[in-house]
């Protein structure tokens, strides 16, 4: 058993400890490899890569010894199994990618390895990132390391979902089996699991991180981003992941600032918008109270709360559930049993396609591909797809107008804490409502971050979300760090690798 205190570090602390030679990258990788094994019951990892982690750690130790440390040298991280990793099984948690070993590396993971990071393995997710609970994976559901407090279980101690779709990444970081992880966020898939698992999740501005080599779900909405223990760690990870990539035509040709340097702690005079439309029916009072507490924390730090209106908020989810399935039905057309993945033989090419796709796609993926096909089909294209694209224009306009008045926007991340595995799976729309507060930023392309701010009455983490101007992650992170300092969230899940000490 290696030193469990290594598992209690933040990424920034581990980075500094490696440079000071308090421990080696190999010791760190060994401790985290053991942690990955220890949290196996959570099903957070689809494919651990312990040998690769040790080899990468040895290379990092070699550079550290020469005093040539890279920004993330020796930092063990997890990779959502939606990022293609050269020669390492990449599943998107779908049966249809059965046995797929990409011959290339995604731009974002390549940047992370070029920065010295160490790969612990690939994490579980909702199939093709379609979901808010990480229960639709072909490889089985992920369990949240948090449980309700015993005195509040009232006979219900069922395991909870970690949120989704980046639920494996969120559970791995929360249970201390990775210092950080990559996620992707199409409608909340970084921020909502971060909220459910008590960690930080950042969806950057659209175009900030390249989508090249990330299995596509809905291309105009997909955002790669980091999931970490702290806001500072998110700033460090984002710097390594971001940057213009000629291989992604939507990647923004803008410089990458030193996000960590933006964490000055000074938000005096900053105007923080509080949108009235986020007070939705059925939201627990404790989330409303936490939100108010967040407003007070920012006011106490010298920021100025401003009441604002985002009138189209309630239409963001239905807009999303036209645009995302439409793009998915097009993107997923590539899974045909010819070039990679699963194939079910048939008597004709058509039959081979149909049988392969019937066997390879799970129920939620099938549902979305069918909805997408329908809204794009002749006779319905204008009524559904073009209509949704027009509403999207108005939703983005809401944000642009709001940012004339304020520098960022504070809201809750999700309308509930984590729920039990199996709940909400009967009614797709009940599941979709998880993303009511996160989807607008995807449609508008604005950066947004979730950070843990408090506990629910039954002892589960609750997140607050800050949304910022496009390409102003620096302000977003500065405000988030101030909120993090005020909230002093120090709670641990019921189950962490190395034990709670």
């Amino acid at each position, binding site marked *: 058993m290696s030193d469990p205190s290594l598992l209690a570090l933040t990424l920034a602390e581990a980075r500094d400890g490696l440079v000071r030679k308090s421990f080696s990258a190999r010791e760190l990788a060994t401790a985290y490899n053991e942690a990955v094994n220890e949290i196996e019951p959570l099903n957070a990892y689809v494919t651990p890569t312990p040998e690769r982690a040790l080899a990468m750690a040895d290379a990092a130790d070699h550079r550290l010894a020469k005093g040539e440390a890279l920004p993330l040298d020796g930092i063990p991280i997890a990779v959502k199994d939606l990022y293609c990793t050269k020669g390492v099984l990449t599943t998107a948690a779908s049966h249809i990618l059965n046995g797929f070993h*990409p*011959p290339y590396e995604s731009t974002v993971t390549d940047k992370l390895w070029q920065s010295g990071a160490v790969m612990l393995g690939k994490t579980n997710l909702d199939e093709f990132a379609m979901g808010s609970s990480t229960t639709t994976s072909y490889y089985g559901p992920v369990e949240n390391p948090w449980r309700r407090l015993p005195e509040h279980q009232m006979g219900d101690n069922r395991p909870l979902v970690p949120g989704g779709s980046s639920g494996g990444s969120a559970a791995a970081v929360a249970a201390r089996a990775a210092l950080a992880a990559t996620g992707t966020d199409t409608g909340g898939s970084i921020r909502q699991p971060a909220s459910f698992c008590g960690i930080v999740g950042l969806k950057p501005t*659209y*175009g900030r991180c390249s989508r090249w080599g990330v299995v596509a779900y809905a291309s*105009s909405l997909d955002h790669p981003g980091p999931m970490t223990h702290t806001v500072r760690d998110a700033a460090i990870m984002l710097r390594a992941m971001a940057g213009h990539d*000629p291989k992604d*035509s*939507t990647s*923004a*040709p803008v410089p990458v600032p030193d996000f960590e340097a933006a964490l000055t702690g000074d938000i005096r005079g900053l105007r923080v918008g509080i949108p009235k439309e986020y007070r939705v029916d059925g939201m627990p009072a404790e989330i409303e109270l936490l939100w108010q507490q967040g407003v007070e924390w920012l006011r106490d730090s010298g920021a100025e709360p401003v009441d604002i209106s985002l009138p189209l908020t*309630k*239409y963001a989810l*239905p*807009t999303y*559930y*036209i645009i995302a399935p439409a793009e998915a*039905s097009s993107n997923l*057309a590539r899974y*045909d*049993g*010819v*070039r*990679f993945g*699963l*194939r079910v*033989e048939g*008597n*004709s*090419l*058509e*039959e*081979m*396609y*149909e*049988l392969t*796709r*019937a066997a390879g*796609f799970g129920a939620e993926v*099938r*549902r979305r*591909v*069918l*909805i997408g*096909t*329908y809204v794009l*089909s002749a006779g319905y294209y204008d009524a*559904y797809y*073009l*209509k*949704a*694209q*027009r*509403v*999207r*224009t*108005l939703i*983005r306009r809401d944000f642009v107008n709001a940012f004339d008045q304020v520098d960022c926007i504070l809201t809750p991340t999700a309308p509930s804490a984590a729920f039990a595995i199996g709940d909400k799976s009967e009614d*797709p*729309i009940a599941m979709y409502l998880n993303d009511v507060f996160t989807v607008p930023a995807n449609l508008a*392309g604005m950066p947004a971050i979730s950070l843990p701010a408090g506990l629910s009455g039954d002892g589960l983490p609750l997140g607050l979300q800050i949304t910022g101007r496009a390409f102003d992650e620096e302000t977003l992170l500065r405000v988030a760090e101030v909120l993090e300092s005020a909230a002093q969230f120090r709670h641990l899940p019921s189950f962490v690798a190395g034990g709670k000490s």
Partner: protein
Amino acid sequence: MPLDKATVAQIATLARIRLSEAELEPLASELAHILSWVEQLNEVDTSGVAPMASVAHTGLPMREDEVTEGGQREEILANAPRTARGFFVVPKVVE
């Protein structure tokens, strides 16, 4: 809006997903439920509003028309379920 079994079968054919007869009815009601929920968008006045396909408004970048990589037939075929003599193999499509 109501969605009948024939429409679901038609969509499934367009999407190249084989459905059994028993799957059509439950899917019809699931899809109809979702479609009637998204139809609340009709409450929004979008007259004169341009549709938005992407928030990236840089336009499509051009690159030089030159070979940047290639000659990777083995790597590209490595994941294929069936190959022969450097090609992907599919069921016969020519009568």
